[in-house]
């Protein structure tokens, strides 16, 4: 949820960094967004397309790396892929794991000139 306010945050981060780098145009914004980050990819796409941007950003292409989620079982140390918060460990079947990947929500890189 909050994909519009998240979009504003993304654009602020990109603009701030692009200005520091003396960029004229931002061509691409690369994001790492985990499948368990709480962000809806389509809603973010919609928000990006419908948010007014400065000249520097208006043609920037958004590239999203959908980071898959992984957990590590604290009982048997097994690492396994997950799609949700409540899948048990396939090795020992316990619900005793930490999420080690998949909640990312970051601006990874920008392509500028």
């Amino acid at each position, binding site marked *: 949820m909050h994909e519009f306010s998240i979009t504003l*945050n993304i654009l602020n981060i990109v603009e701030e960094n692009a200005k520091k780098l003396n960029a004229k145009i931002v061509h691409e914004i690369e994001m790492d967004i985990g499948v368990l980050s709480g962000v809806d990819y389509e809603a973010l796409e919609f928000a990006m397309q419908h948010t007014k941007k400065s000249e520097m950003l208006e043609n920037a292409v958004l590239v999203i790396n959908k980071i898959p989620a992984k957990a590590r079982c604290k009982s048997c140390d097994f690492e396994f892929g997950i799609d949700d*918060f*409540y899948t048990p460990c396939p090795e020992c079947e316990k619900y005793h794991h930490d999420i080690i990947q998949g909640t990312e929500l970051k601006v990874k890189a920008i392509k500028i000139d």
Partner: protein
Amino acid sequence: MIEKTKINKTHSHVHEKDQHHTHDDHSHNRVVQIEQDVLNTNNLLAQKNKGYFEAKNILALNVVSSPGSGKTTLLEKTIRELKNEISFFVIEGDQQTMNDANRISAAGSPVIQINTGNGCHLDADMINKAVKKLDVSNNSVLVIENVGNLVCPSLFHLGEDFRVVVISVTEGDDKPLKYPNMFHTSDVCIINKIDLLPYVDFSVEKAKEFAMQVNHHLQFFELSAKTGEGMDQWYDWLKQKRSKL
């Protein structure tokens, strides 16, 4: 395997990772790594709040739940019972009205009401400002009663020491599975309104089991803010956490 999706403003469809899409590619383009968390601004402010609380030895709690789980009643009761032992300060969050702040004030605690209007959660900046207006004392307990919402507040750290999620027995025991983000990011789970158990199909054991599936660190309290049943364990926890600071 990481799936890459390109979203171009000038097109209305999404590109899957193997499709090639040409753009004007100037040879002097450079790619610069940023690696910045999108919720960075809020997280930084939350850390600032946390530092402020630590410096003043304040125990800060972020209380979250659906609307109607009994957060305010729980707080009123807690303040009335413990106000001679603990100095409470409360930040109330609602879309509109001063109703909750008025109740807390009547219970005997300094309180400030934040009205978010169309906003659906409290954020670190709101707390930063409210704490200064409220002039929270050293060695006190600050309780932030968040906007009733089991979805949005989960993303927004406020600088709290503990996040307390409250569910009532009238809400269905599968609540933790339906709203996993909130339960996953909480430290304590209070099951409220246990006086109503004879009238609802709610299994406390199942609710705890589901919650543990989503977050095995959760600590549980089963109580009724209305009748007082089970409140002692909650009071003990509060006193213990406060004295540990």
